[in-house]
């Protein structure tokens, strides 16, 4: 068990944040800290744009940073669950 930072890029739509936060509760995972912002500096997300083959516009997506303390296996499961949410573009561990 160790503290992890999870980065989530999701569509900036009503209800999208609630789906991610709700998933933690439904699946019995704990959130230690949570920070959310609309993404303005799209030029700093080139890597994500390339991996998903798309172009981001200012304020079109939100960046979510979640801190949680979990094992490796559970982290993999959490990331897969978050990535399954329809409004999520990508969820990954931020090292």
């Amino acid at each position, binding site marked *: 068990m160790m503290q992890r930072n999870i980065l989530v890029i999701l569509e900036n739509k009503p209800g999208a944040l609630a789906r991610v936060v*709700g998933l933690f509760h439904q699946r019995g995972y704990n959130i230690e800290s949570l920070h959310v912002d609309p993404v303005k500096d799209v030029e700093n997300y080139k890597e994500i744009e390339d991996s*998903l083959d798309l172009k981001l516009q200012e304020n079109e997506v939100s960046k979510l940073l979640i801190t949680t303390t979990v094992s490796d296996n559970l982290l993999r499961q959490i990331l*897969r669950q978050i*990535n399954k949410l329809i409004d999520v*573009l990508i969820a990954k561990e931020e090292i």
Partner: protein
Amino acid sequence: MKLAGNDMLIQSLVDEGVEFLFGYPGGAALHIYDAIFNQNELQHILVRHEQGATHAADGYARATGKPGVVLVTSGPGATNAITGIATAFMDSIPMVVLSGQVASHLIGTDAFQETDMIGISRPIVKHSFSIESAEEIPRVIKEAFHIATSGRPGPVVIDIPKDTTAPDKLFNYDPPKSVKIRSYNPPVEPDPKQIERAISEILKAKKPVIYAGGGAINSNASEELYELNELLNFPVTNTLMGLGVYPASKKRFMGMLGMHGTYQSNMAMHNADLIIAIGARFDDRITNTPDLFAPNAKIIHFDVDQSSVSKIIEANIAVFGQVKNSLREINKQLKEKINLIDKNKIEPWLDQIDEWTSLHGLNHELYKETSDNNMIMPQSVVQHVYQITNGSAFVTSDVGQHQMFAAQYYHFDKPRYWINSGGLGTMGFGLPAAMGVKLAYPDEEVVCITGEGSIQMCIQELSTCTQYNLPIKIININNEALGMVKQWQDMSYGGRHSESTYQSSLPNFIELVESYGHVGFKIEKNSDLKETLEEAFSIKDKLVFVDVYVDPSEHVYPMLVAPNGSLKDMWLSKDKKV
């Protein structure tokens, strides 16, 4: 074409190929209902409770593979639909639920019949939409159907504020031709390298088992699975949700596995050196104690949902993609290596399984025309129904002992013919699900095997069956108790039957169904069972309800020993444990 919001909604459904809309009207949905009145391309089925609408749509979806569609009003209409949505979610059934909502300007004011449907349904939907303006209705419908039916299927809720379906404002109806959601890209084709790795394990295996579940049915992969096993000749077990995906009458089929699975299936899984999981998710009714599960087996897991793989049991090889496509690829690669398949290597294993089957396989002795005290065994009711219908009926069930007896003793040779609530275990599912199946296949025999507990949870739908003339057969396996609850109380609570019996309060089911215009038969003696069931099944134009009184002390076996048991630990009868 210029259309108002309500007409755009209905036209969008018609364009998606929707035949039936299962629903119940109310204030917030009235604009939509007016649009239904003015068309004749899709048929609305008026249920008697919104739970019935969701289960009927669900039954339709399971039998046809097409999404079931539901329309309910706001507030209680929406909340009543929740159980059915959760049922579809747990079993990955494609469904689109349209829920009326109070007008946009009233949202958040605790208006009459307002409830936060998006919030309430969030944990039990694949996705949900809230309509913000009429213009987006065609796009949202298109996206909702795409999401509900692709990847791992599931229910999608669309919440529709009343003002967005107002008839007085017209819009240009121009639905999108195709749909692309940039954040939603479920896997389709497998990684051929993973298939190669899977094949190298398959060629090495001495004690292999194929374990296939509902995902293989959802992906329409039964032909590919059949072809795979024509190449391999491996023993096959199906989950409760997977029954029919591999033909039960094939020699290598071992029956269902898990909590009430066959002795040979559970023993084979426990002793296997290779488990090939195909669209199955290792849930707790299958694994028993996960730490004790199949200690010597390598796992190859085929699934479209990455989060189902290595969730409970770690997979050695994961193949992500539509199961159908993955099996097609493995069949292709296997055919190229056909000379490397050594069928003799698994002969001792197949002999071992045959030995297990003859030692403790299902007790087919229960099927008999006479008995000492003339009492009817519940298993023999299912066996008679199987005989009379030549094993070719659609069978829906409710939840409890009768469900397990049906799963054990009705042998399904084709997918989509066995329709039950496996994941959520929803009592009340069977009758409305049978309505959905009968509407889809009016010329097929549709049987609902139920119990006197479950049937009373949605019995109001007998009225819907009258309105739409749905001649289904309802076989009520009546043990005058909540049988599965009582069984657990017998086994784990010293026989204390807390609140699991009705104290002589059951209705006269025959008079009850006759009051709806249906036909009823009551069977109490084993000597009458065959003849009366045959008479019931000879009636083709009416709903027939057969109330069969069975031995109330009967338990479902085999049953896994829990807690702290493995798959080899089973009760085989009330006094025999292995």
